[in-house]
């Protein structure tokens, strides 16, 4: 809401308060100051000066060198390019140090080699409305040397954000009332006129729930014309455009008192005003020329002709408004129930200063006051005669009730930082009054104060948290499962970062197209994707079922930035339905890793090496070093080399490479390997060891074996034979070489040589060579018979 400081000052004395003080005052009242715009001249260093001499600049055709009298006892030389003045004119002179709008500070300078000690200014250059081209020529009687600001009106516009619980602040009077409370200064009394009222037959309310109170005054013989200067200035000061005297008065009263009004052209009305619900499908043409089809939930101002004159509290109709030819008006001032206005405003997408206030709640007791002020101002600015009585239908609803203030609870919440007396004094300043039974009567404009806590809030707000002590105390709490998960995740994150992987954060809403990059632990079926109803764009239409699509997109972006080494991970939630859209939506947490391109930057002693799948396998193993990570092939739609990732025997995630066609599509020049791991399972693997193992007391022996097998034989088959055999003396084995020769010269092309080293040891003795040989023979036998291995 825009508030003019001058306007505000018409209600209370703010003299001597700096803008900073007023800013703080609003801020600590709970009203956020979003902007402060000074209008008029700000600087004291812009003074009235008389031009005593002006001669041609020796080096520039378009410049003159002037000598001006700025009341300093000696003349000041200023170079000036304007042409609209003559010697003897008085003009604004910006002295060195003067700050101009836009943060520009005047200094002493040389212009084309001639000294210039200041600037002679045009109106717009010093913050005044633009005038004629060239310098601002001041009145002849302007005193030389005085600040120009003294000759012009200035004002400050405050852009304020009022919270939804405080509709009483949505007017200058309401704001002034609040400031007066905080400053403990008196509010200038509002000039009000009590209207004579009659419960008239000329207004009928058919929907008392939506409109408890409706008042109307007829004013005849008005002249529609431009508003007087003071009125136009008020409206312009808060950024409103003056229209004509009647409309301007209603707008003025709205921003003065917070009560929206509406003026009808009485000639366009037929019989009584009828406040009724719209018929289903009834059309309404608003004065902004928009057309609306209404529902019975919308409230209309109508008459005996049945016309839709106005959408109650939201906007007037095009047909019934005041025009230049209007002579008689009917002035509406009413109380409409907030919820109804809010629904209509939202449904029709129509909002106005009126609906903004009605939907937050206006003061029911202010309806007639506002009407009376408007009538007075209309008579002043438009002439005419007002009906002596105001037609009133319904009655002002009572929205407040007495509220008790409990001292014990007050002390508890405030830490006994305020006495009951002082608390009561704050409430009194806020317009509440203590009743005989000790409860507090709440003024009609503070319908937000309904409960004990509402009173405490007011006391705390006015008292200020500055005046409340700080208490530093805590209690013991047990760690939760979420704590354990968080700690495990941080371990994983730090390990990955130490392993040279960069953590990413991608958006959890992805596009439909990205879903095909998903690598989910369980394959997706139709309907498993969770789609938001009204996406902001196609790019953010579904909840990610996997983190991989986000990482792929991030990696692709980095490829476009010429990054050669891509190593990314992200942890977080993924979302899916577990039954084709018919079961529950599930949220789980995963870790996704992507690697592609160089494993490290190349250097003078480092050759380039492109990451392969064993790098990613190694990264995963490094996360859980005391487990053995195995990849077990399982096809995945849309990916190549799909594998289940197993830690010991448990499935913990999926690995794959992007299909080469997809890699080309995204301009990757190296294979892209991705993995998505189930964090719930991974965290459990981080628990560490329970007992240390005794160190071996006796030396072991190793034996190597070079095996010749079909190139198609997976290494896993060899491992499986060894694991199944469970030879007690075989403590470990390791594949240390794989060789094949596609030319078929050293080895048939369909065969490969796989070399293993086997380590034998007993816990209770040093093994004899014969024992080792016997165990090794068993191992080789098993490999030969179970895996078809030949030994070379």
């Amino acid at each position, binding site marked *: 809401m825009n508030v003019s400081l001058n306007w505000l000052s018409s209600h209370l004395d703010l003299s001597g308060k700096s803008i900073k003080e007023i800013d703080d005052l609003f*801020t600590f*009242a*709970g009203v*956020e100051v979003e902007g402060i715009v000074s209008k008029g001249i700000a600087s004291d260093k812009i003074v009235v000066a008389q031009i005593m001499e002006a001669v041609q600049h020796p080096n520039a055709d378009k410049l003159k060198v002037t000598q001006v009298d700025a009341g300093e006892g000696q003349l000041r030389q200023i170079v000036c390019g304007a042409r609209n003045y003559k010697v003897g004119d008085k003009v604004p002179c910006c002295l060195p140090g003067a700050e101009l709008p836009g943060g520009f500070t005047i200094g002493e300078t040389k212009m084309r080699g001639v000294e210039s000690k200041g600037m002679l200014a045009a109106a717009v250059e010093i913050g005044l409305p633009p005038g004629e081209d060239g310098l601002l020529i001041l009145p002849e009687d302007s005193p030389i040397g005085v600040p120009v600001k003294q000759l012009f009106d200035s004002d400050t516009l405050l852009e304020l954000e009022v919270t939804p619980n405080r509709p009483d602040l949505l007017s200058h009077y309401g704001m002034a009332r609040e400031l007066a409370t905080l400053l403990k200064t008196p509010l200038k009394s509002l000039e009000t006129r009590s209207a004579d009222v009659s419960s008239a037959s000329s207004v009928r309310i058919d929907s008392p729930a939506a409109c408890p109170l409706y008042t109307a005054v007829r004013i005849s013989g008005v002249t529609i014309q431009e508003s007087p200067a003071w009125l136009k200035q008020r409206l312009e000061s808060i950024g409103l455009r003056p229209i004509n005297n009647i409309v301007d008065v209603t707008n003025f009263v709205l921003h003065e008192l917070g009560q929206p009004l509406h003026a009808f052209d009485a000639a366009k009305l037929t019989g009584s005003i009828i406040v009724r619900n719209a018929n289903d499908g009834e059309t309404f043409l608003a004065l902004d020329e928009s057309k609306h089809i209404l529902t019975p939930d919308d409230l209309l101002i109508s008459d005996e002709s049945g016309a839709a004159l106005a959408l109650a509290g939201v906007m007037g109709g095009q047909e019934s408004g005041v025009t230049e030819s209007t002579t008689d008006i009917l002035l509406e001032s009413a109380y409409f129930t907030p919820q109804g206005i809010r629904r209509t405003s*939202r449904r029709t997408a129509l909002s106005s200063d009126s609906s903004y206030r009605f939907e937050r709640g206006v003061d029911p007791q202010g309806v007639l006051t506002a009407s009376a002020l408007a009538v007075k101002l209309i008579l002043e600015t438009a002439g005419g005669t007002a009906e002596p009585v105001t037609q009133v239908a319904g009655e002002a609803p009572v929205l407040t009730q007495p509220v008790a203030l409990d001292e014990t609870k007050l002390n508890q*919440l*405030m*830490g006994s930082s305020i006495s009951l007396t002082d608390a009561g004094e704050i409430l009194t300043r806020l317009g509440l009054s203590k009743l005989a039974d000790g409860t507090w009567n709440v003024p009609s404009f503070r319908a937000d104060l309904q409960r004990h*806590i*509402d009173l405490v*809030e007011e006391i*705390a*707000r006015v008292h200020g*948290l*500055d005046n*409340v002590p*700080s*208490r530093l*105390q*805590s*209690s013991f*709490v047990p760690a*939760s499962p*979420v*704590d354990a998960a*968080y700690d495990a995740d941080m371990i994983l*994150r730090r390990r990955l*970062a*130490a*392993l*040279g992987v*960069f*953590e*990413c*954060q*991608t*958006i*959890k*809403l992805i596009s439909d197209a990205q879903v095909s990059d998903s690598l989910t632990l369980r394959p997706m079926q139709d309907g498993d994707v*969770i*789609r*938001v*109803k*009204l996406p*902001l764009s196609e790019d953010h239409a579904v*909840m990610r079922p996997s983190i991989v699509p986000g990482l792929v997109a991030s990696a692709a*972006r*980095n490829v476009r930035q010429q*990054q050669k080494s891509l*190593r*990314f991970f992200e942890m977080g939630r993924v979302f899916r339905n577990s039954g084709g859209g018919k079961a529950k*939506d599930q*949220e789980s947490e995963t870790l996704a890793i992507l690697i592609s391109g160089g*494993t*490290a*930057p*190349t*250097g*003078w*002693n480092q050759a380039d090496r492109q990451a392969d799948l064993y790098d990613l396998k190694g990264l995963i193993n490094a996360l859980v070093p005391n487990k053995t990570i195995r990849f077990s092939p399982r096809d995945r739609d849309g990916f190549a080399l799909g594998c289940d990732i197993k830690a010991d025997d448990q499935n913990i995630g999926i690995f794959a490479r992007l299909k080469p066609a997809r890699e080309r599509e995204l301009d990757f020049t190296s294979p892209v390997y991705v993995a998505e791991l189930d964090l719930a399972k991974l965290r459990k693997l981080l628990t560490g060891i329970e007992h240390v193992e005794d160190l071996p007391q006796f030396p072991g022996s190793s034996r190597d074996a070079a095996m010749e097998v079909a190139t198609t034989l997976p290494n896993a088959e060899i491992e499986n034979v060894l694991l199944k055999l469970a030879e007690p003396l075989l403590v470990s084995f390791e594949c240390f070489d794989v060789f094949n020769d596609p030319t078929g010269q050293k080895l048939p092309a369909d065969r490969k040589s796989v070399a293993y080293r086997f380590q034998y040891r007993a816990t209770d003795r040093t093994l004899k060579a014969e024992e080792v040989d016997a165990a090794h023979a068993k191992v080789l036998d098993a490999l030969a018979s179970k895996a078809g291995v030949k030994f070379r």
Partner: protein
Amino acid sequence: MKEQIPAIQSEALAQIAAAHDERSLEEVRVAVLGKKGTLTLAAAGMKDVPKEDKAEVGQLLNAARSAITTALEGKQSALQDLADQAALTGIDVTLPARHVATGALHPLTLIRDEAISILRRMGFSLADGPEIEDEFHCFDALNTPADHPARNEKDTFYFDSGKLLRTHTSSVQIRTMESAKPPIRIIAPGSAYRRDEIDATHLSVFNQLEGLYVAEDVSLPDLKGTLEYFFRELYGPQTEVRFRPHFFPFTEPSFEIDVKLTVKGQAPRWIEVAGCGMVDPAVFDAINASRKDKAFDPEKTTGFAFGMGLDRLAMIRWGIKDIRLLIENDMRFLKQFA
């Protein structure tokens, strides 16, 4: 013999002195002290030496062996020193390092972890809840009126199921109080969603950190002390913290928190960092109704809650001007946090 031994000795010593590496030294040793070495052969000739000369020749032999052995050891040690010296010369320590891959945590993780570390020191434990929420946990139980603008489909993401993406982590307050009794002292970091177009200051998916303390006799001094302490731990002990009255449906009184920060070369200014307030009794009423008990008796139970935007804290901490940098994952950005 008496003449021969000194000759062998002097020749051997000359050869040792002339040896220029381990190998030539070894050749000298073999040539003199080996099985067929000159001194070995001379020693073998002892049997032919007349008895009366044996003592003298024996002495000569021993003296020669001792001198030669000493010379050999001395030379070997000298050669080793030379080799060691050679091994250490010519190394250019100023050549660049071998690259070791280093990664980095995301700035959001860094700021979240810092915030969580501080709050855990203060006795908060972690809690969480679903991001796909229902209206009850996101709005109703948080005292949000049925026609509140935040419930609008223009501001909040809904699903056909009627569920929605939580607009704040405050829903975790409700989830926690439904399943636990006071005292409750939790923090909940997590994502929240609003239908905001993505620009330099808005993300439709952003990150918050929620806090809740509910017990008997939780007061404004607790709220103030807790959050002042938190922000001074986060931004430095001298940090000024101020509480501006504000409005949230689920707390009363409510405040927004500003901290006064100085960016190098700029005047200090107040920056909004969090919202907070005392839990509104209407929230306890809703919880009790949901639990079907009186575990959160509004007559006895009080509490405070707070929420802050982690993306914003990260932006303030590192002077990040465009929030989109936090989700674009540009390596040139991420590397700065290594």
